[in-house]
């Protein structure tokens, strides 16, 4: 029972002298409302209401620059229609998918491998691990700006190695159609592999040691142990990591904006960048709202998947 701790706490505060508790009139119901109200008000006002307004705008032809005086004009599903039949929009979905799949796949492989490496106790492990986690806490914008500097063919350090040390032709990371996307992926991998590594490590360290010992008794090979013990037990967490990362990669904006601005020739123009241009460069507010909703639908589908896995995990651990 919690009595021990409780008594300590009670002892450190003066004994109640009156029979009526302070704030006794604030019953549970009132408290519940009081506690939840500010949060709900803020969420409703700044998260929900704008989304509803945005939904309304998506059915209108409206440009905040050109139609400020005129106001929105109802056009029904025309925005959605033109977006879904526009080759450019599908191309951007493709670009985003390419980015998400490449980044998350590499992050998964590298992150999991790193977790396997870090799963054993060696001197300095704590410090090394904490240091490796710093990249994912940094501002993505600043990370991208700095990588942009390192990528420069003339002044950057990366091409110096490629060109002068290894003797290969300098890679024009940010201007070459073939390498721009990879440049972006590398930055993302650098920043977010630690995320997957962290989760994978948690999963690995949660695998009970006796399972391995039992397998050892049966003279099982390393590969057997990995395939039949480690992998199945770590998979749920890996899945969560991959899903989280995919959702975040789908939303990515800062890195692309700072590194390439969407170029060259739209090869790194992920959906967020495309939407930004539509809404804040061309100021096509109505159409931008529609595209935003289309993006939302896709991500909700992904999120549903995540929640299902999360619930499964919670059920398993109970």
């Amino acid at each position, binding site marked *: 029972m919690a009595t021990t701790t409780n008594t300590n706490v009670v002892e450190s*505060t003066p004994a109640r002298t009156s029979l009526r508790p302070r704030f006794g009139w604030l019953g549970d119901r009132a408290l519940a409302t009081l506690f939840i109200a500010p949060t709900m008000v803020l969420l409703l006002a700044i998260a929900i209401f704008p989304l509803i307004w945005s939904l309304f705008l998506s059915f209108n032809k409206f440009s*905040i*620059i*050109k139609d*400020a*005086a005129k106001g929105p004009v109802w056009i029904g599903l025309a925005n959605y229609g033109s977006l879904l039949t526009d080759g450019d929009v599908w191309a951007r979905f493709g670009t985003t998918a390419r980015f998400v799949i490449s980044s998350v796949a590499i992050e998964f492989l590298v992150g999991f491998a790193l977790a396997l490496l870090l799963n054993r106790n060696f001197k300095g492990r704590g410090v090394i691990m904490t240091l490796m986690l710093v990249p994912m806490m940094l501002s993505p914008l600043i990370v991208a700006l700095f990588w942009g500097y390192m990528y*420069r*063919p*003339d002044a950057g350090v990366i*091409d110096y190695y490629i*060109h002068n040390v290894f003797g290969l032709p*300098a890679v*024009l990371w*940010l*201007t*070459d*159609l073939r390498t721009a996307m990879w440049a972006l992926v590398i930055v993302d991998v650098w920043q977010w592999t630690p995320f997957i590594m962290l989760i994978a490590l948690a999963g690995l360290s949660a695998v009970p040691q006796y399972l391995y010992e039992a397998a050892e008794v049966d003279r099982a090979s390393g590969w057997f142990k990995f395939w039949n013990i480690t992998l199945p037990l770590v998979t749920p967490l890996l899945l969560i990591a991959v899903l989280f990362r995919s959702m975040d990669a789908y939303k990515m904006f800062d890195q692309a904006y700072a590194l*390439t*601005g*969407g*170029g*060259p*020739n*739209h090869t790194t123009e992920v959906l967020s960048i495309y939407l930004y*241009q539509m809404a*804040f*460069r*061309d*100021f096509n507010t109505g159409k931008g709202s529609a595209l935003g909703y289309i993006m939302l639908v896709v991500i909700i589908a992904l999120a549903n998947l995540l929640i299902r896995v999360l619930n499964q995990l919670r059920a398993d651990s109970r």
Partner: protein
Amino acid sequence: MHKRMNWAIAVLALLSILLTACQPAATPAPTSPPPAATQAPAATSAPAATSAPAATSAPSGSKPQLSIIWFAWAPCQALTDYVKTYPDADVTVRCVPIAQWHDQIFTDFAAKGGADIPILDSQYIGEAVTGGHILELTDWMKTNIDVASYVPSALKAYGEYPPNSGKFWGIAAEADAQMFVYRKDIMTNATAMADYKAATGKDLEVPQTWTELLQIAQFFKKSSGKYGVANGYTTHWCGTPACYDQIATHWNQILWSFGGELWDPTTYKVQGVINSDIGVKALQFDKDLFQTGPDGQGNFQFNETVSALCDGTTFMTTIWYGFGAAFVDPKGCKHSADLAYGVTPGEVKHFISLGGMGLHVSAYTKNKDAALAFVKWFESKDGQLGWAKLGGFSARTDVLSSDTFKNAAPYNPSFADAYQYVKDFWNLPEYNNMLVTEMNNLNLAVTGQEEPKAALDAIAKDQQKILDDAYPSGPPK
């Protein structure tokens, strides 16, 4: 201990609420956020102490506050200094990165706020006018500006919309054109001159045509640094949206000088105009020119171009006069003393890309009279002479021919010559999407990732579609 922590949290929460709520909601960013680099004094100029950045003596509460927004480059910083000498108002200047220049201003327009005097690029004028975001100045100019002293094409370029309508919405803040910069120490190097003559039969001198320029560039590229530079020619080839109009303004003048056109302004036709044989020839030429430059130049913006000359990797460039201040600064530019300046060459015709931009008055300003008074002061002869002393460029012929202007910087004497050849490209509201496709495809073509003909066909197709969608019944009357 816990109790104290609880109270600490409560106090913190209260403090943060107070702090947020009571923050002065409008502490304007003091002067412009620092753009980068080169420090000042030119070794050549003997300036008077015209720009004493002293605090004005009148209590600032009685003077109107004005704000200007421009993009971050040396002239913007010069303007920040110059406005301190204006006696009738407190003027602050905001210099934003070029990638955000347009978006920032128009976002402010959308918010019905922003600077009192936005400096727009000439391309933005159409968009700003059709949205009702800037004031028409036609009548005001008649009585407040010495219209007759201006280069006529400058007045039109920086303020007229629709084209040739006689309606003016802005007036020159900074005139600009593309200048030719080269290493005079190498141009006069005896060995180089002798070898060049031997190789080509011509004298090594400042090129008068683009073909001559290409020949010189190719010679130096082949020389592999024997005469002191490893590359012949480079410029701002960048073609991404963030670069705005860099490669386009470079190539447009080549196209025009070769005899080609970007579009037909009377019929709003692009197809068949830009991708004509002359167009292909001009783009193929530019591709050859690209080959004479340093590695990685495909992404060069203005600062890398300046560095290429300053660090000594490249022999020649063409770039805006506005960047002259970066060239003459000996601290930031290693070869500053070896550089010389000339007029950008022509070919069968002689056209130079028009640069510069105008002062406009926001429709949402609360200080309309003060803003107009500032514009009048800035555009007056004395105002323009003061601007010239700080390195600014004027569009007034009387200022351009004055000694003050000519002596202010080593590249100024050639400016008046260059300015007679200037030509601008379309400033329709749809310019943005038209520019994006031109920039993309030009860059792909010069870097060898697309054939010139295919690139021009792509541009023509995209731009024609944009125009047809925006003007289904033909050009506006």
